[in-house]
């Protein structure tokens, strides 16, 4: 069990966003999270990566309880969070952004070779390597964000809404790249609205509603997941 979340409770100020949430991810898996907006998916990731404090419950990564760790410590252990939206350093070049991704002790020495690996994965980024991040298109920014995450040499990579706002063609490209990342041995936790994308990439899905897991699919493909989709869309239509 690479990551195990047990009865997590977390929130902001007076608000409780995550109410007793449990899930687990094995090494080498790709797991997807989906569900309505505002129900805690992003908060969950932020809690795991240490940006938000857990009120109660546990987060176990590689057997160690990281509930009270700092974000820096968690990154050093190989748990990397690529957040939603504005995640880059706008007034730095693509190259500088990638360099920053390797800031941790774990990744710094290997940064040069990892930069070439990222460029192999996303050739477009190599073309723009001296450009400022803020001048990139939406799809390129997303690629750079993921590239940044990869520079940290993750054992577990968490992606928050990687396909948000992207055109279908770019989504496909991105999906391909994510598949390659998974195949290289990185465990993935992906949050996204696009369930088809998730289905294409992940072996298991969790539906998060009201800060809890309300549905979990088995590790089979096809029919079970179609059922899940219907149930989900059926519910939402209510």
């Amino acid at each position, binding site marked *: 069990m690479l990551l195990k979340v047990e009865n997590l409770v977390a929130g902001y100020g007076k608000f409780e966003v995550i109410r007793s949430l449990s899930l687990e991810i094995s090494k080498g898996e790709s797991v997807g999270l989906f569900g309505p907006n505002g129900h805690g998916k992003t908060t969950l990731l932020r809690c795991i*990566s*240490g*940006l938000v404090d857990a009120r109660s419950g546990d987060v176990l990564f590689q057997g160690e309880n990281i509930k009270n760790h*700092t*974000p*820096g410590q968690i*990154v*050093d252990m190989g748990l*990397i*969070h*690529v*957040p939603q939206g*504005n*995640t*880059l*350093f*706008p*007034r*730095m070049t693509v190259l*500088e952004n990638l*360099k*920053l*991704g390797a*800031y*941790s*002790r774990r990744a*710094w020495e290997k940064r040069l070779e990892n930069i070439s690996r990222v460029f192999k994965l996303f050739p477009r980024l190599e073309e723009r390597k001296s450009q400022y991040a803020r001048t990139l298109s939406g799809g390129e920014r997303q690629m750079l964000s993921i590239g*940044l995450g990869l520079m*940290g040499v993750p054992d577990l990579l968490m992606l928050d809404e990687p396909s948000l706002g992207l055109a279908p063609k770019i989504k496909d490209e991105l999906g391909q790249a994510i598949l390659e990342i998974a195949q290289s041995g990185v465990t993935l936790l992906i949050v996204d609205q696009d369930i088809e994308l998730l289905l294409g990439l992940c072996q298991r899905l969790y539906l998060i509603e009201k800060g809890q897991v309300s549905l979990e699919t088995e590790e089979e493909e096809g029919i079970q997941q179609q059922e899940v989709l219907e149930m989900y869309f059926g519910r939402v239509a209510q």
Partner: protein
Amino acid sequence: MTIDFERIIAILVSGLVSGSLYALMASGLSLVWGTLGMFNFAHGALVMLGAYAAWYFSNPAGLGGGLLLGIPAAIVLIGVGGYVLYVLLVKPFVGRPGADLIVIITTIAGATFLQNGVQVVFGPRYKQLARVLTGEVRFFNTAVGFQDLIVILVAPTMLLLLALFLKRSKLGLAIRAVEQNYDSAQLVGINAGQVYPLTFAVSAILAAIAGILLGGLFFILPTMGSEPLLRAFIVVVFGGLGSLPGTIIGAYIIGLIESISGFFLTLYWAPVVLFAVLIFVMIVRPTGLMGRE
């Protein structure tokens, strides 16, 4: 013809000296503002401390180690001082709502503390730092002091070093990262809790260098920090908050404005001109020359 030319050289030199000093002082402020979003009202006090530290280590009345000891010692000492300042006056309040106002208050108090403390230790009479090189050089019939030349050369060099530091070194990268995207910086493994005090230390080093240069040109007094502080504020606002290049360019522009108005309007009116510039910027273009908000 010669008279005009002399005048021009004198104005230019004076403007460049002022601009260089302001650039040094303002860049430290700008750095702290960029990363922490706060103004350090004790920055002028750090300038003053730099001058006093250099004096103490170099002057026979102090430790008498000469400038060779005085300058590096002052830089190191005040750099550490910046770190300590952060820990005592800023760190306890980071994250609290209204922290920026609180920090203004605590750093004002800190400045007062340092100003009076220095007076207690060194007495209120003015001191002067030994000149690095005495004498002057003549450009087209105008005398330009060597000390002035040193300032004009040293300041941009220091600023260049600063730029290189920010662009190339790991810590410099971290400082810029925290400034540009605090959350992402954390997710990349940067510990803002360490970056902040180091930023303060860098800012203090810049202040100390400015103080050392000032101390060689003018008198060293416990209150010598308040005017530089004022100028630094005006420059930072004028040049654009959050933009280091803007701040530096703004510094030289302000230095020249001051120098020119000082010649034609006499020193009586220079403060008014400055204030008018400040008001103008704040009303017409609050983000400054090259600032972002």
